[in-house]
């Protein structure tokens, strides 16, 4: 029996803070990405999973989404869609990659595209408020049973935000399972999930599936996510 602490389930809220700035063309986008506060880059690159209410987003960040849908520049959208913010140790490093990609595209074009009126990208920063739900999961089986009913905000906190807290290395679930001494292949399977590429509902499904594949406790009810 492991002596580690039970898994503490957290939930979170986003406090969204607009900065009163927007961009309507690619050159303004470049200038804005150079100068907006760090929390704005963080928000638009990592927190839009919380805004995708109908699982519609083609791309995992707001910049790629805006370039594709509003600006109509699919080349830049595709490049921005591949940027993994969790591969960067700092916002400064992430910002530099974004600036490089946008600047490179601006240089390629004779005339930069502009979005139609009303479809500007409005820059928003955010602060995440995390709170302990009080729920404690003492075993991997308990974690597995709980997964389908965890809020999507909880998933965001324990999968996405955990990567920011751990410098891109891990998520809270696999980290706890590893400390607990759970099956290393389950830990590896969870860490192999392409977190950034999936929306939160897909993320939950993949996690439930990973547990189901590795479950050694037949008495645990295998409930599909809603």
């Amino acid at each position, binding site marked *: 029996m492991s002596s580690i602490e039970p898994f503490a389930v957290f939930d979170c809220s986003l406090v969204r803070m607009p900065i*009163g700035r927007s961009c309507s063309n690619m050159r303004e986008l470049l200038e804005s990405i150079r100068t907006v506060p760090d929390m704005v880059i963080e928000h638009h690159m990592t927190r839009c999973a919380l805004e995708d209410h109908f699982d519609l987003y083609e791309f995992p960040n707001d910049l790629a989404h805006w370039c594709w849908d509003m600006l109509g520049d699919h080349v830049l959208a595709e490049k921005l869609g591949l940027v993994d913010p969790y591969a960067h140790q700092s916002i400064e490093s992430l910002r530099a990659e974004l600036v490089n990609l946008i600047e490179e595209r601006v240089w390629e074009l004779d005339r930069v595209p502009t979005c139609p009126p009303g479809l500007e990208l409005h820059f928003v920063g955010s602060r995440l408020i995390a709170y302990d739900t009080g729920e404690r999961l003492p075993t991997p089986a308990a974690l597995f049973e709980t997964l389908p009913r965890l809020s999507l905000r909880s998933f965001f906190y324990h999968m996405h935000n955990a990567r920011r807290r751990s410098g891109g290395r891990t998520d809270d679930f696999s980290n706890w399972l590893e400390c607990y001494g759970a099956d290393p292949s389950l830990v590896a399977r969870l860490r192999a999930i392409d977190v950034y590429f999936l929306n939160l509902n897909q993320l939950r499904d993949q996690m439930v599936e990973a547990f189901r594949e590795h479950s050694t406790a037949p008495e645990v009810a295998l409930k599909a996510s809603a």
Partner: protein
Amino acid sequence: MQQLDRYEDVVGHAEVQRLRNLAARLEGRKIVHVNSTKTGGGVAEILGWMTPLMKELGLDARWEVISGPPDFYRVTKTLHNGLQGLPVVFRSRDFELHHEVDKQNAEKLNLGADVVIVHDPQPIFLPLYTPKDQVKRWIWRCHVDASRPNRAVWKHLAGAISQYQATIFSMAAFTRPLPCPMFLIPPSIDPLSDKNCPLSEQERLETVNRLGIDPERPFLLQVSRFDRFKDPIGVIEAYRMVKPYYPEMQLVLAGGPADDDPEGAEVLREVMDAAGEDKDLKVLMLPPDSHRIINALQRSATIVLQKSLKEGFGLTVTEALWKGKPVIGGACGGITLQVHDYHTGFLVHSPAGAAYRIRYLLRYSDKRERMGRTGFEFVREHFLLIRHLRDYLCTLLCLDQPGEMDLVA
């Protein structure tokens, strides 16, 4: 049982408990909300439930309402229109009157608090005339679309905004660069109020029959103040385009007065003229407390419209979605936060667009029902008062600990 406990059936025990845990960190905080009317309009409705629930959460919350002569409301309605981009004309005397009335109200209202939240432009100058030691923090809550304001109006208001420590808007698109931090908090509805609670079939049918609407025939509904920004004439045009294909169709335009809106009577006259003698077109001027009537109308409508030309948020959209009705909304303001094409309704840009989507939804009843179910769940997750309260509490926590860092509550 406490009031908040009643919401556990709607949002679950965990959500309500989280709200209580968050509020514990702000226990005893003195908060005063100030607006310009106790009745009529979305702000008054929101403050009507928010104030007692904040008290129940342990905050010392109060609601104060400013008052002024009829001329003041004419001026502030013009300001409201100008803030939403309409060309308006002011005299310098109008600006002076705004200051005078706010000064008088600052002297007579009880504003001593940790936080005073001033709603919309009518009371905006209160910080200038309130002794500095009475209020620790002023927050201006703007409920309208201020993305393209009239320049003179903005210059008049900008001097006041500099007195605030924070501002709150419903959408990022409504904001402009300001010297203080800005926050986004969309409004919400109370699912247990008279306007949104479940109704018996008997009450629903009796209400609709009493209003002269045939419940056996489909009807379109728009519920709004009689205001040009709500485009009631455009709704009538859309109805007239649909009618030849659906002769049994009815249209109901239901509105009510707001104390701070002097243009309502004029717009109502325009709408009555446009309606003419069509017996299938009902224009209803309802008293301010007609919440259950509106509830019955929204639950009975086949399709709900909110064909606004400008809209701060559009709580009538939220109400309709909550009742499982797809909404055809003007592609503006907060309506775009709520109406997503093919999921919860359709966004339109013209009376013809509205007519087209009406015909689509009438044609495909299965899609209509699916959108209704999606809309209901969408509102439950994002636009109920528990979320709204949580946003306010989180905002206050962020103001207590300024900076960019995330917080653990």
